């Protein structure tokens, strides 16, 4: 009788997926890190003893923002296609996501090149340069990592290695990408809207 109490009844025992829980935990940790950089940015806003100031140097990166935010849509579209087993649609949507991400990075690169060459703004110039490059750079680093992962999945798809049973892996990756997008919303509001 007692042994039966330990063996019986495994049916209906469902636990959260480990990949999803793991990614959520990771995102919590990442958020904590971004919070510190955002706080540093806000804390040092307007404390630079000399220019250039954000008002002089920055302009609204509208195209960039549109790229990154719409990539959240395309990746959701891709995941839905994969869930229904439509691999071709998935490939198109996923490729679009990667392309939009690449466009965003290119836009950031152009902005940085302009800042360095025209505005003479580097991390060593003043507090604004320090906090700006670190916050935007940290975000761009996350976009880069995401882009590498997106490209890997895209390659696997093109070589026909992707299967519906990997839906969960792809979903978790999409979760990360959404997170990166959300961070951009915060960075955008802090750096380009509030800070300018």
């Amino acid at each position, binding site marked *: 009788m*007692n042994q039966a109490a330990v*063996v019986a009844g495994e049916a209906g025992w469902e636990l959260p997926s480990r990949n999803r829980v793991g990614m959520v935990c990771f995102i919590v940790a990442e958020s904590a890190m971004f919070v510190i950089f955002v706080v540093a940015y806000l804390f040092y806003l307007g404390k630079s003893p000399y220019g250039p100031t954000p008002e002089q140097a920055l302009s609204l990166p509208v195209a960039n923002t549109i790229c990154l935010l719409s990539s959240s849509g395309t990746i959701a579209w891709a995941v839905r296609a994969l869930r229904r087993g439509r691999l071709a649609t998935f490939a198109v949507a996923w490729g679009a996501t990667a392309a939009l991400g690449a466009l965003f990075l290119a836009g950031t690169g152009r902005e940085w090149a302009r800042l360095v060459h025209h505005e003479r703004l580097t991390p060593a110039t003043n507090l604004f340069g320090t906090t700006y490059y670190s916050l935007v750079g940290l975000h761009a680093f996350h976009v880069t990592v995401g882009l590498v992962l997106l490209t890997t999945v895209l390659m696997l798809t093109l070589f026909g*290695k992707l*299967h519906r049973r990997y839906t969960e*892996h792809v979903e978790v990756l999409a979760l990360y990408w959404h997170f990166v997008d959300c961070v951009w919303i915060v960075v955008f509001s802090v750096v380009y809207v509030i800070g300018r």
Partner: protein
Amino acid sequence: MEATERTEATGGPEEIEVPAPTAWPLTMAFGATLLGAGLVTAGEVSLLGAVLLVAGAVGWFRVVLPVERSVRIPIEPEGQPRIEPRPPTTHPRIAEREHRARLPVEIFPVSAGIKGGIAGGVVMALTAAIYGVISHHGVWYPINILVAGFYRPELRATTEELSAFDGWALLFGTLIHGVTSLLVGTLYGMLLPMFSRRPVLAGGLVAPLAWSALLYPTIGMINPVLARRIDWGWFLVSQIGFGLAAGVVVSRSLRIHTRQSEPFAERIGLETGRRP
């Protein structure tokens, strides 16, 4: 857990799948460390670190996908140890039939503590009055000193002034004494069930002694002027008077059962009599 029950989704009856060992996480960690160490040594170290990092990541990826690599481990022949039922002698019988009881099983109602506090307060006031009369300072002297402990200008007063009647001091003193007595009485009501063997000894002697022993050096440090005015012998007597009166009153009152030891479902009235 009999051998026949060894049917698991992850393995056959004789083997169990566990994740395969791999050195790629180690490689990746080493790469990451070298990548950082390059900052403080030489660029080449960082380069090597980056190569190892990427190699580790790729290797790791290939272990996990397309299928997680695993190895099959044969089940040890003796299997899992069997847990035998054993006689219920290993656990304490702390209450009648109940080793799960939350101690204390019975408590005094709050009203008992309040009554005890009142009784103790009255006895203490009487003791203090007797002291006042015997020490020839007058019956108002103790309560004036009590107020002086809280209100500094009083401390500078002479003994004659402290012996005289003072309406405000009487009011404040009664207030302080009353509130403290009620609080300490309630505390007695809560603590005495914990010392269920000799409640009057614990409450009437040990607690007053401990309290006096704590106050003697503390008041001496915090307020030496006040300490000089206190007759510590009589102080102790009045404390013991309070303790005995409160202890006797509290421990004489009717105890009530806590329902803490009953199952939660029974306590909230969902089920009754589920216990065997």
